[in-house]
């Protein structure tokens, strides 16, 4: 398989000033794959704001590190496993979880939660249901077995994912600041490869993921073993606690090739290894196979002669296999021996840094054709529309999914799936982290810039609704072929949005990942950036759920505009793709969020929920279902610039929050002082969801009906 392009090979040989042998070409080919090298995206990623007062380690290492005070840190990372999951959903998704967990372990922190963002074609399309079922099972089996709770995420269904799926997994770690791995090495330090045996599984996985999905390549998919990973986790934690490792790197895409070259480059030390020592699954593996195998559950530890007896003792306790591959050296090269002969000898810096690609960007022509759409007629029965939206799989309850995940192990999960807009985890008795993943491929397709801003705004709203101060984001940017200028333009728009949002909000980007070539014979995926937002709560009294409470007065903060493009209402109900997507005004977004945080801090909020997919109507129904209550809301009171009731009910305008309170006078006063657009729109009362307009009924549905529609995904999957 030719992996390097002609120009890359010429560049490599020019730098080496000699021919590169086949093993060297395979090593460099893995490392210079888009997946490992970020050669299309790196220039743009440098634009992201990554500094902040809490950021100890930004993007670049395995996971970002955030100082949460009192000597503790949070680590966070996000990865995807799209190609593997599309051909082998169970193994692909499971190994995706395994990979991101190892990134968290590599920093010396214990993973305390997993979240996943999943995207599939509608469930009646080709193999979508099969993919969905087995992806969920793969995540469940891996996370459950290893004992890390899967606490949240999001799922979207869209036809652009036909014969494909996006499987993004994020993990959060928690640890002591003093135990963060310093990542250094001295000459003579030992390189220890521990964990899974190296086999012929996952050969060329990184390269496989760096091309469009053409054919099923199952041998490029790795095999999961969560039990082995659990042993590796406990061994790594003990090794960190006992101070017997100087650097850690997990083995992921590109196998030993990437792990060794990147670690050597990062540490500024040459490595001399003999891959004849690698504990392998089978004999007779070639040098190249050993170097690029992506067999799972493997870690590289750097230690020294004094510390190695302790490390060996720990690995033996967990009955983990390990090989001492070689040593750190005084030079700057990666020298690979296979038994007696040198099979590769190249400068690590050269291997670890692919020549960056210059990608052309051009505004896609399709944007003009979907800019203006004909307004659909308002349906006579808006209650029926509301029920159909509640039963749309993107909006419907994900109980079928999260009940398969152990989301409680670790005794940290304060707000559980279904409780609130984000998961809330206990860090200490009075310190909590809120975390959520958000994406919206429908918005991002119609307007990648505003769509991406929207994902960030939604993430901020989600953590704010739980009472948390947003402190950092991670981004996962997923697009089709970057060599297509129209695709690449959408990527640059997403970058611009992240730069603008994060600079304005002063929220640093602490980690991320780019995934290109997400396309099949059916075509490219819609641009699908997924943003993860992390917040902190310093007082348990602030923790806020989304369920309505009896007697609550209901307020809305924010303005509703007729921005119907990409809404569930247009896409699901009217089958319209196009129009104006919701626009984020940064100032308003910040002001509204800060005002809600102020109300929560003042103890005025009994429940909070943001308006997103399905708009105001769906948000209120979700609050009613979660709170086992009904409500009465007058849509005439909702601050809006809409001409029609369906627009007020289903617009997905950003920066809007719905809150319930027992003290409407005080809330009114605080929101007036904050200078935000708001209104008191109704009350939590009875057993029905009732919308009126100046007293006249618009929608009236019993909660039982709402619940039945909301349970539709569960019914489909149990069927």
């Amino acid at each position: 398989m030719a992996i390097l392009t002609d120009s890359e090979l010429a560049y490599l040989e020019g730098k080496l000033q000699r021919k590169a042998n086949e093993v060297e070409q395979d090593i460099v080919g893995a490392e210079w794959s888009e997946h490992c090298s970020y050669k299309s995206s790196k220039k743009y990623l440098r634009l992201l704001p990554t500094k902040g007062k809490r950021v100890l380690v930004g993007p670049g290492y395995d996971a970002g590190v955030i100082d949460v005070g009192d000597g503790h840190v949070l680590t966070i990372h996000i990865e995807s496993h799209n190609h593997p999951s599309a051909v082998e959903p169970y193994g692909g998704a499971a190994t995706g979880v395994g990979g991101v967990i190892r990134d968290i372990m590599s920093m010396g922190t214990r993973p305390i939660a997993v979240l996943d963002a999943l995207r599939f074609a509608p469930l009646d399309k080709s193999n979508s249901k099969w993919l969905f079922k087995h992806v969920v099972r793969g995540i469940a089996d891996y996370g459950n077995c290893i004992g890390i709770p899967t606490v949240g995420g999001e799922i979207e269904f869209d036809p652009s994912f036909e014969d494909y799926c996006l499987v993004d997994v994020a993990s959060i770690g928690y640890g002591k600041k003093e135990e963060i791995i310093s990542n250094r090495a001295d000459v003579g330090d030992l390189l220890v490869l521990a964990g899974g045996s190296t086999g012929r599984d996952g050969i060329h996985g990184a390269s496989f993921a760096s091309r469009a999905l053409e054919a099923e390549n199952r041998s490029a998919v790795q095999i999961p073993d969560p039990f082995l990973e659990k042993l590796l986790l406990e061994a790594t934690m003990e090794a960190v606690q006992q101070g017997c490792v100087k650097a850690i790197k997990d083995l992921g895409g590109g196998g030993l090739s990437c792990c060794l070259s990147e670690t050597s480059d990062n540490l500024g030390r040459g490595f001399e290894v003999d891959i004849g020592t690698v504990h392998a699954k089978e004999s007779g593996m070639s040098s190249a196979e050993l170097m690029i195998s992506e067999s799972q559950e493997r870690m590289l530890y750097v230690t020294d002669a004094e510390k190695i007896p302790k490390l060996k003792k720990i690995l033996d306790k967990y009955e983990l296999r390990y090989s001492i591959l070689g040593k750190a050296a005084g030079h700057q090269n990666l020298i690979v021996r296979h038994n007696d002969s040198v099979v590769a000898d190249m400068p690590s810096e050269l291997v670890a840094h692919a020549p960056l690609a210059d990608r052309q960007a051009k505004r896609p022509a399709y944007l003009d054709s979907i800019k203006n759409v004909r307004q659909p007629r308002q349906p006579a029965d808006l209650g029926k529309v509301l029920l159909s939206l509640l039963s749309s799989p993107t909006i419907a309850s994900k109980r079928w999914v999260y009940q398969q995940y152990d989301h409680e192990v670790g005794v940290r999960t304060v707000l559980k799936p279904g409780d609130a807009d984000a998961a809330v985890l206990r860090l200490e008795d009075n310190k909590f982290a809120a975390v959520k993943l958000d994406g919206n491929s429908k918005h991002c397709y119609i307007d990648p810039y505003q769509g991406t801003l929207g994902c960030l705004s939604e993430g901020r709203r989600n953590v704010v609704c739980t009472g948390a101060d947003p402190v950092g984001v991670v981004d996962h940017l997923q697009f089709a072929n970057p060599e297509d200028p129209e695709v690449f333009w959408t990527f640059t728009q997403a970058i611009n949005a992240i730069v603008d949002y994060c600079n304005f909000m002063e929220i640093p980007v602490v980690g991320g990942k780019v995934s290109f070539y997400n396309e099949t014979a059916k075509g490219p995926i819609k641009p699908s950036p997924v943003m993860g937002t992390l917040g902190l709560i310093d007082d348990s009294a602030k923790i806020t759920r989304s369920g309505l409470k009896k007697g609550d007065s209901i307020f809305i903060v924010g303005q509703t505009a007729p921005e119907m493009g990409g809404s569930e209402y247009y896409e699901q109900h009217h089958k319209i793709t196009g129009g104006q997507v919701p626009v984020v005004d940064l100032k308003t977004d910040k002001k509204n969020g800060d005002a809600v945080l102020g109300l929560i801090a003042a103890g005025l909020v009994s429940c909070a929920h943001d308006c997103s997919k399905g708009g105001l109507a769906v948000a209120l129904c979700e609050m009613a279902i979660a709170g086992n209550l009904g409500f009465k809301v007058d849509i005439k009171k909702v601050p809006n610039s809409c001409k029609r009731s369906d627009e007020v009910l289903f617009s997905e305008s950003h920066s809007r929050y719905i809150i319930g309170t027992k003290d409407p006078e005080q809330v009114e006063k605080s929101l007036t002082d904050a200078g935000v657009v708001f209104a008191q729109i109704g009350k939590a009362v009875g057993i029905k969801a009732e919308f009126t307009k100046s007293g006249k009924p618009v929608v009236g549905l019993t909660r039982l009906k709402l619940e039945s529609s909301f349970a539709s995904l569960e019914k489909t999957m149990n069927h």
Partner: protein
Amino acid sequence: MTKVGIAVFPGSNCDRDVHHVLNNVVGLQADFIWHTKDRISGYDAMIVPGGFAFGDRLRAGIIAAHSPIVSEIKRMARDGTPVLGICNGFQILVESGLLPGALMMNDSLRFVCRWTKVKVQNNETPFTSEFSKRQEFDIPVAHGEGRYMVDSKLLKDLKKNNQIVLQYSNDDPNGSVSLIAAVCNEDGNVMGMMPHPERASEPIISATGKNDAITIFKSLADYLKGK
């Protein structure tokens, strides 16, 4: 000072949670004991926590049931030491022969993680003495193989000997015979339960805000104090 031992196998994953609740919430001193330990002394009770011991390979609990620490736990159980198995720990105790019956795949054929309610049917064990009889409390389950099975003869015996300790109250998560959530041995000193009391012992992480499940551990503390 009384001490509780927490058996830790490769793949145990609720060991740290039980340790936290006993030491920091209940105020009982608890230590981890690695599975290779073949002589245990100085411990007044043993807990076998949840997780996936040995990755649930072969069959949940079967490999752990043949480990050195389980031989010790058997000896201690014979001497009357209280032994509690939670979730995977219950599976291990069943596989080791300390408790009757078997734990099968849930009737949904899926892993299930959710809160439910259980009812106390026997409040005369070291783990339930502080409950009132028929008291209901909130507690979560998280398991793939939690469907408790016995044949009709054994079920009769269990009832006769008062070995059914906890039953799900109508909201059955897995299809267990007679809604059984926990059983004990004939002497009552060994109990296995599928639900997780350590996840329901603190109001902050309780789905309902209630933490009555802590009474499982408080009963044990009380029992050990009175010994």
